[in-house]
């Protein structure tokens, strides 16, 4: 199992993502100017403040050379996980539906939340069960998931809501408590919470590992 972890100017969670991936298989960082993703089984687009979050979070990163390669990688069926800023980048790139707006309370939110697995049939939830409760931290200012109501209905009915905040745990006012979504094929997944920060009981929870393990299950199968 080989993971590639993208690194943009302004990324800040790529080291933790790399460390999480290394618990499951081989992994290396992929600088944003690289365009050859051959040999990888999964790509992680990590959190941070790519390109300073100028204009809108993720708006400029989507034009980086590596993102063209990530799009092709995903179209060929490769597994792609966007975490926090990475989720924002995938939405801006049109690889995932919806958008992430400033938090309802306008504040930066940093805390542990409970996240429910809504669809256990995506590349990054396959190792979990539907309804499983994962304790994972969030830390963001623009994490309020938004999509027009008709699109939300469609996402719900087609099982593309991958993660939802547990009742009472919605930290940012996301529509319908949505914490993460998947593309139609289920190989591209994005979420605001940070599974890479929850991979060791020493820091409170190892639940985040389930996502990375899921990707490995897929590669072996």
């Amino acid at each position: 199992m080989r993971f590639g972890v993208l690194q943009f100017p302004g990324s800040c969670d790529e080291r933790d993502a790399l460390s999480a991936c290394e618990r499951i298989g081989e992994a290396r960082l992929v600088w944003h100017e690289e365009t050859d993703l051959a040999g990888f089984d999964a790509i992680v687009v990590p959190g941070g403040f790519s390109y300073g979050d100028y204009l809108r979070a993720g708006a400029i990163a989507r034009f980086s050379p590596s993102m063209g390669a990530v799009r092709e990688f995903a179209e060929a069926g490769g597994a792609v996980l966007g975490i926090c800023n990475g989720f924002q980048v995938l939405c801006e790139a049109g690889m995932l539906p919806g958008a992430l707006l400033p938090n309802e309370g306008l504040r930066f939110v940093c805390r542990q939340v409970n996240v429910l697995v809504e669809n256990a049939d995506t590349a990054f939830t396959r190792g979990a069960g539907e309804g499983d409760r994962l304790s994972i931290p969030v830390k963001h200012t623009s994490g309020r998931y938004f999509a027009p109501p008709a699109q939300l209905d469609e996402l719900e009915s087609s099982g593309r809501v991958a993660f939802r905040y547990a009742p009472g745990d919605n930290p940012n006012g996301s529509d319908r408590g949505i914490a993460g979504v998947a593309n139609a094929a289920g190989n591209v997944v994005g979420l605001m919470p940070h599974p890479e920060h929850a991979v060791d009981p020493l820091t409170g929870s190892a639940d985040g590992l389930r996502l990375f393990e899921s990707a490995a299950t897929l590669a072996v199968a």
Partner: protein
Amino acid sequence: MLIRPKGGILDPQGKAVERALPALGFKGIDNVRVGRMVELDVEDADQLPELCEKLLANPLIEDYEIEEPPPG
């Protein structure tokens, strides 16, 4: 280019500004919305709508207007 949050989308920044106004003695101000303005020089203005759609605005959540200032 004027870029603003689409109508109906909660704008927490506008709300925060609105809530600060009474403390400064301003009364009767409602529906504050905060957007942004991008200024640029351009030779061929025909490309601006595409520029807005692709980068400067996210059409899912924002509306935009293009204004050309009078010469001089």
